[in-house]
């Protein structure tokens, strides 16, 4: 497992890997929205928490399709499936690698990007904490979606379709926490609920992911 994690991280960091690009996408989205919506800082502040969460979610989404796809296309996945590693471990490792390369940098970048969108300072703690607790769920759920669509050419957009509904609860609680933070309300309840989702996904979804992989390889 550690070998696999190390390899995935190495691949992400190498030329053409995905590291930092999810982050770049997030950055770009946060720049785009004001262009689309207009520069009025009052409006921006109002929608900032929601946009930041939607942005984090999309940045995750964009990097999902290749979690297994590349390994499938060049035959590595077949080889991994016949290796002594259980597929559940492969699924967990892949999700972890995805989080390290995507969720973690997003969480760290959220604070400065919030500035760009005039996010009220009061909303910051709830936003960052929410991302830290919620992005693991995004990675695990996304890995499941990727396992379902592995082997389909241009699975990328199909994953989005499958995974977005699953992302909904995380998004709702996360954005709600950040909005409440902005309004000075207490944020414990949504954050706790979200932590619950993350923990449950982490514990259970790898089994579903492994099952989906097995069916797809058949």
């Amino acid at each position: 497992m550690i070998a696999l994690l190390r390899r995935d991280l190495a691949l992400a960091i190498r030329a053409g890997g995905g590291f930092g690009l999810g982050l770049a996408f997030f950055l770009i989205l946060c720049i785009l929205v004001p262009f689309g919506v207009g520069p009025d800082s009052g409006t921006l502040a109002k929608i900032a928490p929601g946009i930041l969460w939607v942005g984090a979610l999309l940045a995750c989404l964009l990097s999902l399709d290749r979690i297994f796809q590349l390994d499938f296309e060049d035959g590595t996945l077949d080889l991994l499936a016949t290796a002594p590693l259980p597929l559940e471990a492969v699924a967990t490792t892949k999700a972890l690698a995805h989080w390290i390369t995507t969720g973690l940098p997003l969480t760290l970048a959220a604070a400065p990007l919030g500035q760009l969108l005039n996010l009220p300072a009061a909303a910051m703690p709830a936003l960052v904490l929410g991302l830290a607790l919620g992005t693991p769920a995004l990675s695990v759920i996304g890995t499941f979606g990727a396992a379902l669509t592995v082997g389909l050419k241009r699975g990328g957009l199909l994953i989005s379709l499958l995974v977005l509904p699953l992302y909904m609860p995380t998004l709702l609680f996360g954005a709600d926490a950040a909005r409440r933070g902005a309004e000075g309300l207490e944020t414990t309840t949504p954050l706790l609920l979200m932590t619950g989702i993350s923990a449950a996904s982490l514990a259970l979804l790898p089994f579903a992911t492994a099952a989906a992989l097995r069916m797809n390889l058949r």
Partner: protein
Amino acid sequence: MEFSAQNLACRRGDAVVLSEVTFAVSQGEALILRGPNGSGKTTLLRCLAGLTPAVSGSLSFSPDDVAYAAHADGLKAQLTVAETLRFWAQVFGTRRIEAALDAFDLRGLMERRTQTLSAGQKRRLSLARLILTGRTLWALDEPTVSLDTSAVAQFAAAVRTHLAGGGAAIIATHIDLGLRDAATLDIGQFRATQSVAHDPFLDEALS
């Protein structure tokens, strides 16, 4: 130990391709699979490696005894040769990649990205992986594709070493590997006929 299959039926996609496959390979033996294109060699090997469950019939061994090498190389363009081998070594719980490097003469290429290898060099690397697995039964799908004559000889030597060490091998190939006392199995004879392939949706139509 003997690796054998009894009345195996294998499917590929929606169709049952092979049925009644029966064979046995002992340790120290190699079995060459022959058969025209599309006769089901790949199908059988995937079944032995546990990638597609058998439709019916039984195997005397578990997929965990099998090291499988497919048509595709399964290499990552961005990793170097040494990194690739080290990764697989760790997955299979060993550390020593020297034997694999030497068997396929890869020392000169160790620091090259696999992206920049020629077709035959890639193939040699993916075969070297087999030695790391430490598994007894090698199931190889046209291993010598793109190899030049001297590399084919290296490969044959590696197989012989493996057999001498108590391993076994099932190799699908169209060319002569120079493995003298290997048995040959013609896969053409096992082509599934309609009556054998139980399809719940055809039962009524046929009866």
